[in-house]
């Protein structure tokens, strides 16, 4: 099923399942981590709205903080978009982004579609420039022997929070990008 068609909880569960540390999580822990990451994303979205981010035209707001690049050629790895921490740069791969709507039987509002990705990557900007990486806010034990205990964060929490951030603005993304649903 297309990622955009999934509910936030379903998407978060899928993302957590792809995490290298997934097998170490109990069901209770999974639910707790998902709720935690979602709450961070939503909280940041509300803060951004309060500080003047217009989700219909996020470019203007985002350009104050980071560079934006729209690439037409495909990326070297299967991704839709990325955020380069070193250069504070958001890169969108347009050919790949167009792929994500394949199979959705709607007329897509391309500008809104782009917004989803811009906002997603902007959340990562916030992680590295304001709130700190969400992946490191909750850690789990990966190794324990006698007095030695190694705890590590989960990459997926960062992504779950970024998706929650976007959906706080967009609501159901399929409805949001549907040109006929405005």
């Amino acid at each position, binding site marked *: 099923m297309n990622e955009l068609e999934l509910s936030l909880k379903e998407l978060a569960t899928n993302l957590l399942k792809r995490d*290298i540390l997934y097998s170490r999580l109990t069901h209770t822990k999974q639910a707790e981590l998902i709720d935690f990451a979602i709450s961070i994303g939503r909280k940041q979205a509300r803060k951004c709205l309060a500080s003047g981010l217009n989700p219909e035209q996020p470019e203007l707001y985002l350009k104050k903080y980071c560079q934006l690049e729209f690439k037409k050629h495909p990326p070297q790895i299967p991704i839709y978009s990325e955020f380069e921490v070193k250069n504070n740069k958001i890169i969108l791969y347009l050919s790949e982004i167009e792929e994500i709507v394949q199979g959705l039987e709607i007329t897509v509002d391309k500008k809104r579609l782009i917004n989803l990705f811009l906002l997603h990557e902007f959340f990562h900007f916030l992680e590295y420039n304001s709130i700190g990486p969400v992946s490191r806010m909750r850690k789990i034990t990966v190794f324990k022997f006698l007095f030695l205990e190694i705890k590590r964060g989960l990459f997926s929490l*960062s992504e779950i929070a970024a998706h929650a951030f976007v959906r706080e603005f967009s609501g159901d993304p399929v409805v949001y990008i549907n040109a006929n649903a405005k």
Partner: protein
Amino acid sequence: MTSAILIIVLFVILALLMLTRKLPTLLAIPLMAIGIAIIAGIPLGGEQGILSNIIQGGVTRLATAYVAVIFGAWLSQIMTQTGISKSIIKFAAELGGDRPLLITLLLAIAIAILFTTIGGLGAFIMVGSIALPIMLSLGLPPVSAASIFLFAFGVGITINLGNWAFYVDATGVPLEVVKTFALSLAGVTAVLTFVFILIEFKKAGIRKHWVKPELNNQAEVRDEKVPKLALFTPIVPLLFVLVFNWPIVPSFIAGLIFAMITLHKSFAETVNIITKSAYDGISDVAPVIVLMMGIGMLLKTVFHPQVSAIMEPFLNAVIPSSTIGYILFFSLLAPLALYRGPLNMWGLGSGIVGLIISLGLLPAPAAMSALLATERVQAIGDPTNTHNVWLANYVGVSVNDILKKLLGYIWVLAAIGVIIAAVLYM
């Protein structure tokens, strides 16, 4: 003199045929063995003749080595089929958690440890298809991820016991010498791997991606539950050779027994795994065994007194005997190990090293070490390696791009190896 020129011409023709992929090494080496024998005037019959000495004696010349390779492949299959190799890679990634540099370093260590024991394209694909998506998902460019993988593989393969058996058998150098030099070379390779990873991370920086679902799907990786103790399996044979000075084959058997005990399988399952992995392991290394048979024939040819006598004046003029000459010669020409070239022990190099040793042009440990050092260029960077081709395809880059990325590093690595060899054995 005419015979020497004809031998060199044959050598160049076969090298070109291999380079242009008109003739596989598997066939070129035995053809060269017989061709040289004919040019040198070695008779067909008789105890020292082509039939008995070169062909019959040649195919069994490296028997000890290929038996070791078979046992290595057997253990390799056990590690693959029971999930030990997968679990080692996964455990390394888990220990790294959400720290990309740490994950990459730990993955490199895990890959290196695995390849001290496992081998063959099947094992390479199995490890690569787990480790590479993780590396790519960290934001490393594909060519960097592939290069890091090859570097880590290069560390492990330098202390791969099956390979040690080959060097001992092919050059007649004691295992102790191979052990000392290979461990030094692995140390240098590890340091360069570390430097390479740091440089690549510095260049790439931290990147966050909205990835497509197909990248790094760990749900496909986590299947088998392997007891933690079984994860030590790849280092067991190495420990037995290094610490208890056991020969290579019994050390592999010790690894095999250790794996089966620590995996806690039922008796029926244990028997099943042992037999299936034995068959699969042997079929994995069948091409290597056939190649070794050809190399054995070539060694028999170049060690033949008639061939040595013909080649002595030529090689005397070419191979330097001074320490500085030795360092310059092998360091500068190290890339000749690429494309199955004359400094590749698993190709034409075995003939060259055989001649150098048989003529006493260099001490045997110095000749073996020089070729082992230059072979780093081949093992890690050679675009004709099937594992390099698979890797390039998997990450979607050209195999030559990987070589371009690595060549500077592996050339320096070979040169450092030659210098160490000169200090130890010249």
